[in-house]
């Protein structure tokens, strides 16, 4: 009985998290299939999955490795553009099945973003704290600038590419893919809730199995005490970059899913505001707490929509909610108040159960 209690109490209980996600998916999918879901809510299902996956990815960097990244939207951007470009190319080349296009696109997005994550991680992870944060922000801005000034097109002669100006002409049957600041347009919306659900589950499994492995142990040791970790032979950089690369790959896949949910995709969407949005999910849900990230990402994506009735005031309310939640969860006096209350409540419960056991 005690073991089960500990299991449930454990913050990062993997199985509880899997259960919550699976149940949520089943409920939402059946609601939608039976026509009981508003079109507004239906339209939010894929973005929620994408944001949840992004939050999980960022939590791996912020909560597990323990480094602040202010530029994770950059990884989302790489995944979105790389994945969507490939999907458009596949469509142009006659790949009919949307499922195949989406799956291949998302895998490609993950791989490309992983490589970029690795390359970016090499300089970034050499820095500490706020300097690391600023460099991630810098990279995200660079990525945004590059995609907003990139031109990619395809026709019978193959792929054409240029930067800053469109330096090529396409034939009549050709299709422009990335058009500078206008991004990618006329996207066929092939992202599905099922794909989003699978992505979230994959992210969860990878993260939980990583945390409960020697890699996770090493990373948490590094985060707790880097110098001690080095003294027992743990190669700090190797583990940091491994987790960072995985985090980037997940963000990339999420970006691709996100990108194929709308008919157009622009680089300016993946700016610092988006990075911060995801960061808020992670901090509100609790660093290192995956279930928390899922709940926060879902709630905060739905909240602005739910607050639509407030119309112009909703972002203001959002800001106030943010400030109030941070104050009540971090201010010592307020925290003590809450924990006293909790103690009283649990003591009562323990008293009852102890009495119960004694009677067995």
């Amino acid at each position, binding site marked *: 009985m005690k073991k089960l209690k500990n299991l449930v109490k454990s913050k990062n209980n993997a199985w509880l998290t899997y259960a919550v996600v699976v149940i949520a998916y089943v409920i939402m999918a059946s609601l939608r299939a039976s026509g009981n879901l508003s079109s507004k809510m239906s339209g939010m299902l894929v973005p929620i999955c994408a944001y949840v996956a992004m939050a999980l990815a960022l939590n791996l960097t912020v909560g597990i490795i323990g480094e602040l990244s202010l530029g994770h939207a950059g990884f989302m951007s790489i995944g979105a553009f790389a994945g969507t470009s490939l999907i458009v190319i596949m469509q142009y080349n006659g790949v009919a099945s949307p499922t195949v296009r989406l799956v291949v696109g998302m895998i490609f997005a993950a791989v490309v973003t992983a490589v970029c994550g690795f390359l970016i991680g090499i300089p970034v992870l050499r820095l500490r704290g706020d300097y690391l944060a600023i460099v991630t922000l810098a990279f995200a801005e*660079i990525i945004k600038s590059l995609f907003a000034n990139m031109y990619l097109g395809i026709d019978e002669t193959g792929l054409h590419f240029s930067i800053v100006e469109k330096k090529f002409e396409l034939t009549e049957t050709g299709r422009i893919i990335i058009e500078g600041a206008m991004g990618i347009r006329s996207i066929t919306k092939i992202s599905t809730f099922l794909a989003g659900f699978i992505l979230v589950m994959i992210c969860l499994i990878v993260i939980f199995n990583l945390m409960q492995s020697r890699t996770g142990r090493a990373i948490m040791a590094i985060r707790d005490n880097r110098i001690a970790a080095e003294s027992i032979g743990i190669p700090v950089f190797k583990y940091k970059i491994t987790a960072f690369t995985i985090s980037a790959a997940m963000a990339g896949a999420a970006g691709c899913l996100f990108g194929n949910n709308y008919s157009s995709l622009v680089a300016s969407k993946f700016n610092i505001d988006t990075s911060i949005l995801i960061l808020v999910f992670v901090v509100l849900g609790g660093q290192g707490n995956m279930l928390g990230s899922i709940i926060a990402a879902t709630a905060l994506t739905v909240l602005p929509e739910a607050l639509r009735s407030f119309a112009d005031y909703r972002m*203001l309310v959002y800001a106030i909610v943010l400030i109030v939640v941070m*104050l009540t969860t971090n201010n010592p006096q307020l925290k003590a108040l809450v924990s006293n209350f909790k103690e009283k409540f649990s003591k009562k419960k323990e008293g009852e159960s102890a009495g119960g056991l004694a009677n067995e």
Partner: protein
Amino acid sequence: MSFLNYLVSGLSLGSIYAIIALGYTMVYGIAKMLNFAHGDVIMVGGYICFFAVQRFGFPPIVGVIVAMALCTCLGIIIERLAYKPLRSAPSLAVLITAIGVSYFLQNSAQLLWTSNPKVFASVVGDGTIQMGDLVVSHVTIVTIIVCIVIMLVLTAFVSKTKMGKAMRAVSEDKGAAQLMGIDVNTTISVTFAIGSGLAAIAGVLLCSAYPTLMPTTGSMPGIKAFTAAVFGGIGSIPGAFLGGLLLGIIENLAKAYISTQLSDAIVFGVLIVVLLVKPAGLLGKAVREKV
């Protein structure tokens, strides 16, 4: 336009960044937090001056003073309400709260003043001076001069006055400073007050040089100035100046000689390269961890 022209206007832009960066770096050094809302205080300063001058008809200098006064109060209020309760909280929590404050300011501005751009009339008029081949606007010159004056005054303040010494003590060791009888709360409030007052000046100068004013006006300059502060070595006042000025010059030269669209990317690229070579920033001190 000549190289010198670009240099001078880059210096002017950099001066604005420097003034903003000062606010970031002082608050970081003394209160050990990243005040994400700082960029938005700039915007508020711009709006206050705009209304004082263009709606209520006050002379520009009064507009600037009113903006400074009100922003200073705003800074202190924000500190007391949102940051002080989180003095012992993890830095990420404070950062998120600061982000909340930033959104609050931006959205309040949007509600109060709409997102229609306001045309800001320069506080020093539209005149220009001819210096040889150079045509320099009054705004540019005033901006640079104001920046230099602020630098001198602030450096003197921090090194010569009692409050300045208190600020330095708190930035070194908050606990020890408190034990030595320094009122840490007042010191931190003064820091925010100074930073916010400077933000108001920066807002006025920014809008004088780039006359459109919107609720999001402070956002990008805020990010760039924050970058400049880190670039120069976060926590270092001379670092904020150097970082700000260099950033402005690099940005302008990149716009002029390489590409306008890619200028941001280039600026951030330079930052990354510098931090790789000097991980603690140009004038930052690498703090050695005691083993």
